[in-house]
């Protein structure tokens, strides 16, 4: 503090003597140091007053008093500055906590992509913020592959907390053979019991039977997947009726099946994909279909990554919602 007083007095003395830009620059430099050392505005004025009194022995009494008023006025500025600093510190702590939570979530929701079957599988899931409100999970045994894709309406921490509940519901299931309608029924009961009325989750569940090349699916109000038939080079939506999870305990879900032939694929997604927006408005389903069709001969993982990057580009790299895309391609 004494050091600053000396420095300040010297700069002030110089400046009173000669009003050069250089002397003003010195003043600005010392302000950086003062802030770093947490010296509050009222203290700076007090230093100014004391320096002035030393430099000008004949300083007018009225002028001296005026600084006391200024000090009084500056006290709250000093407080506001300190509060600001504390809030910034707090914000950094929250951010760090969020990153930790996101890591925990990632570990929790880790899913193993099944290999060594007659399906080529690609998956990408990218949260809009730190925490993901989308969920994709595989179940797998020798003959069956199950895939769950879910989306909590909303994003961020509340959505992420909800997601872990679905994970434990999925873990309680017996195996990949379970029928989609049964899976949805079980998860719906869990969600209905544990989640507040304002929380809605949509979910799609599909099961692929390797022995019959059959894909059976059901949906709880989820975005319908796209089925690409390689023979006709055309997309169709896989519709299945069913209410969102957690609304009422007993819901009748509808189950459908299709057969996959070589080159056919199913594209499962969340509304982060279908509700992509560019400057001109929503990106149309046709555009998304065209993007996918462009890369239909690529490995499934490359397909999903390509679609993500393409849509990212169309949206000027501004991702509004959690994004999840899964492709099952028959080989």
């Amino acid at each position, binding site marked *: 503090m004494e050091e600053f007083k000396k420095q300040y007095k010297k700069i002030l003395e110089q400046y009173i003597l000669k009003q050069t830009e250089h002397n003003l620059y010195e003043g600005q430099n010392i302000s950086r140091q003062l802030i770093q050392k947490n010296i509050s505005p*009222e*203290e700076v004025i*007090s230093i100014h*007053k004391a320096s002035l009194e030393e430099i000008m022995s004949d300083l007018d009494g009225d002028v001296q008093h005026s600084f*006391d008023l200024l*000090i*009084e006025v500056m*006290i*709250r*500025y*000093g*407080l*506001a*500055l*300190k*509060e600001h600093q*504390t*809030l910034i510190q*707090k914000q950094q702590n929250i951010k760090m906590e969020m990153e930790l939570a996101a890591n925990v979530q990632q570990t929790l929701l880790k899913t193993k992509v099944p290999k060594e079957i007659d399906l080529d599988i690609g998956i990408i899931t990218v949260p809009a913020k730190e925490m993901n409100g989308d969920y994709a999970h595989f179940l797998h045994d020798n003959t069956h592959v199950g895939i769950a894709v879910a989306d909590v309406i909303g994003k961020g921490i509340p959505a992420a907390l909800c997601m872990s509940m679905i994970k434990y519901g999925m873990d309680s299931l017996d195996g990949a053979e379970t029928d989609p309608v049964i899976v949805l029924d079980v998860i719906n009961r869990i969600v209905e019991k544990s989640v507040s009325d304002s929380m809605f989750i949509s979910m799609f569940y599909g099961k692929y039977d390797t022995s019959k090349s059959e894909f059976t699916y059901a949906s709880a109000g989820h975005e319908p997947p796209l089925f690409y038939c390689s023979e006709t080079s055309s997309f169709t939506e896989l519709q299945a009726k069913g209410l969102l999870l957690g609304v009422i305990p007993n819901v009748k879900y509808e189950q459908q099946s299709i057969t996959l032939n070589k080159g056919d694929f199913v594209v499962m997604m969340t509304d982060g994909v279908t509700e992509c927006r560019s400057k001109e408005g929503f990106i149309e389903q046709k555009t998304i279909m065209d993007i996918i069709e462009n890369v239909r001969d690529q490995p499934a993982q490359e397909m999903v990554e390509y679609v993500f990057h393409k849509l990212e580009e169309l949206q000027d790299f501004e991702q509004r919602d959690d994004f999840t895309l899964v492709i099952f391609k028959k080989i």
Partner: protein
Amino acid sequence: MNLRSSVDIITEWDIVAARQLGRNEAKDVGFGTVDQARITTAISELARNIYLYAGKGNIEIKQIAEGNLKGLQVIASDKGPGIADVRKVMEDGFTTSGGLGAGLPGVKRLMDDFKIETVFGEGTVISATKWLR
């Protein structure tokens, strides 16, 4: 040494009287202009809280000493509604009178020691001390 004096807070003008008392005592202890301004701002804040939320109360100013250390203690007491959630009013960014850098966190920052005792429905006693360095 235990000099004490106090001001009853009933009208807004009593806030000024409390400040004046605080400033006189602070000068007497030997505080400089900046610390005087800090102490009086803290007194303002405490007296204003009494005036706004409790209706009436009292600000007591005490010169105190601990070993070689001299200081000034401000005690604000009222029989108002008390504070339901102390943790919340001590939080930065939370202020019911809607100003930056004030309220009880401000008082705590301006002074060296800060203590709050409150019983919901019965009243509040806040004491804050500044030490002369």
